[in-house]
């Protein structure tokens, strides 16, 4: 980390009371964020929470209505040009030109970032190798798979080695392997000193990557902390038990509650428990139910999702996504029960 033109700020990204409305719709109702230089920050929330709006403001694509927004100590509206030279943006919809080859796409972004031609060539080769796109380098992007496009999109954001990187839902729609690969790259970037602001709908992703997390809902911050702290608000692990019918589910709830287990929900055939020690509790649950003659049809242990955090924090599930966006976080109706 030597040659940034901007004096190093403690916080690579600083946002205070950030506001944005579209007509009568309030997209951001005053959020605060501070991302220390060299860390990954997770902006977690469902579709329509305002994540993308925040990223667009910080990447100078949109102008804010109120509050402060600074990248490397520079106000994004006052000197957008300065900010653009120091940021990279990779989005949810791989913004690459289908009619150009992978190499041409990198060249396009490199030239438009005003790097010298010879450096652009070198960087393109380097990045193609890094992102395992050498064989496809001279094919048009039209022939690329979704994962390849996403890698190229991220590579394009890195052509000028930006000290601050914005990743707007970088893994949405990717298969698990591509997702893990991308996580590896992001971790590597941060080890090298890059500051990353990552938006995601997946608590698991924020957990894997982010040092600090802010959860936003309807343009407002509803929680902040580390992934561990957020998960702790829910319980470390969730056990889902499917039984034969809703009546059995209700019986199971009563039995388990009597047995001293708390934080139990039922939803149709399903009973859900939040527990500290997943595998131990699972054995207890099976024993208890077996003792009562209730046979679980299936039993699953899983980590809490954004949906669980939401339910705990707000008492409602993540909002229904807008109709044009496919539902990634479905709203579920549940009855709450605790003993």
């Amino acid at each position, binding site marked *: *980390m*030597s*040659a*940034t*033109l901007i004096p190093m700020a403690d916080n690579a990204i600083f946002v205070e009371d950030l506001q944005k409305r579209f007509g009568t719709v309030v997209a951001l109702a005053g959020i605060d964020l501070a991302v220390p230089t060299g860390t990954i920050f997770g902006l977690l929330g469902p579709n329509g929470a305002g994540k993308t709006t925040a990223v*667009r403001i910080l*990447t*100078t*694509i*949109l102008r804010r209505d109120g509050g402060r927004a600074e990248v490397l100590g520079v106000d994004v509206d006052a000197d957008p*040009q300065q900010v*653009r*030279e*120091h*940021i990279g*943006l990779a*989005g949810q*919809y*791989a*913004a*690459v*030109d*289908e*009619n*150009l080859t992978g190499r*041409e796409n990198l060249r*396009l*972004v490199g*030239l*438009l*970032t*005003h*790097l*010298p031609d010879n*450096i652009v060539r070198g*960087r393109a080769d*380097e*990045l193609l*190798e*890094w992102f395992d796109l050498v064989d496809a380098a001279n094919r*048009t992007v039209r022939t690329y798979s979704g994962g390849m496009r996403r890698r190229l999109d991220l590579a*394009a954001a*890195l*052509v*000028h*080695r*930006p*000290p601050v*990187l914005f990743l707007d839902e970088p893994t949405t729609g990717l298969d698990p392997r591509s997702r893990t690969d991308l996580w590896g*790259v992001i971790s*590597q*970037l941060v080890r*090298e*000193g*890059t500051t990353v602001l990552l938006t995601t709908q997946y608590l698991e992703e924020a957990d894997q990557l982010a040092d600090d997390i802010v959860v936003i809902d309807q343009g407002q911050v509803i929680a902040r902390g580390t992934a561990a702290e957020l998960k702790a608000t829910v319980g470390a692990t969730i056990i889902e038990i499917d039984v034969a019918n809703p009546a059995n589910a209700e019986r199971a709830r009563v039995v388990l509650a009597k047995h001293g287990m708390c934080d139990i929900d039922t939803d149709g055939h399903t009973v859900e428990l939040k527990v500290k020690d997943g595998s131990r509790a699972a054995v207890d649950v099976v024993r208890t139910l077996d003792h009562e003659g209730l046979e679980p049809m299936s039993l699953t242990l899983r980590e809490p999702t954004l949906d669980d955090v939401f339910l705990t924090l707000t008492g409602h599930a993540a909002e229904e996504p807008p109709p044009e966006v496919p539902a990634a976080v479905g709203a579920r109706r549940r009855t709450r029960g605790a003993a």
Partner: protein
Amino acid sequence: MTATTLSSPALRPRRRSALAWAIADTKTITWRNLVTLRRLPQLLIFSTIQPVIFVLMFRYVFGGSIHIPGVDYVNYLMPGIFAQTVTFGAIQTGIGLAEDLHKGLIERFRSLPMARSAVLAGRTLADLVRNVFVVALMLVVGYMVGFRVETGVLGLLAGVAVILLFGFSLTWIFAIIGLSAPNAETAQAMSFPILAPLVFVSSAFVAIDTMPGWMQPFARYQPVSVAVDAVRSLMLGGLFHDPWKVLGSLAWSIGIVAVFAPLAVRVYRRTA
């Protein structure tokens, strides 16, 4: 995979004046759009199919019943066809921009330190290059059906220059439509009602004297007619010789660019 680093040290952009960058960025975007054109030659073919059909229809079907005193109808027709070709071709500018917008490319461009005007200038310049090919193709088609330039090579080149400049000016109008439309299909649908009266209520295919009186002033002075008359003056001369039309067409084209180019850049800046 080992020694190279992905992210540091940061690479510094070169320093140049804003104007120098605007030119360099425009060159880059033009290159990018021309690569697309080279890779998808069908775009070029499609934009000439419609005018070729018009040539055949007016030359062989309607032409027989259209009498323009003192000239072979095919010579009267072809300048009209050139104007029609670049006018309808301008829709492509809007379609291209609408596609870039909805594929997220413009969003990426807006996060880069590039000149704001370059995305539009690079698009309209690439479409100007495309028009060079399209007009050349239509000249060949014209020669095949009997069109002859009466004034010589200079007249031919001057006529082509007038029509290309006119086409270039129109692309700025359609750039605005492309940036405002919700998608490429709508951009296309929105463009046609604007273009049809300009192309057909004009001197492109028939003499304006044959139109109803109230229609004639519009038909005579609107930009397509003036461009067509200018090309006739330059390529046919004689009866059609009229330097005022040439100046008029240049004035229209420059005026359209002067008004719509800054407007298009403004729309681009505001498009999120």
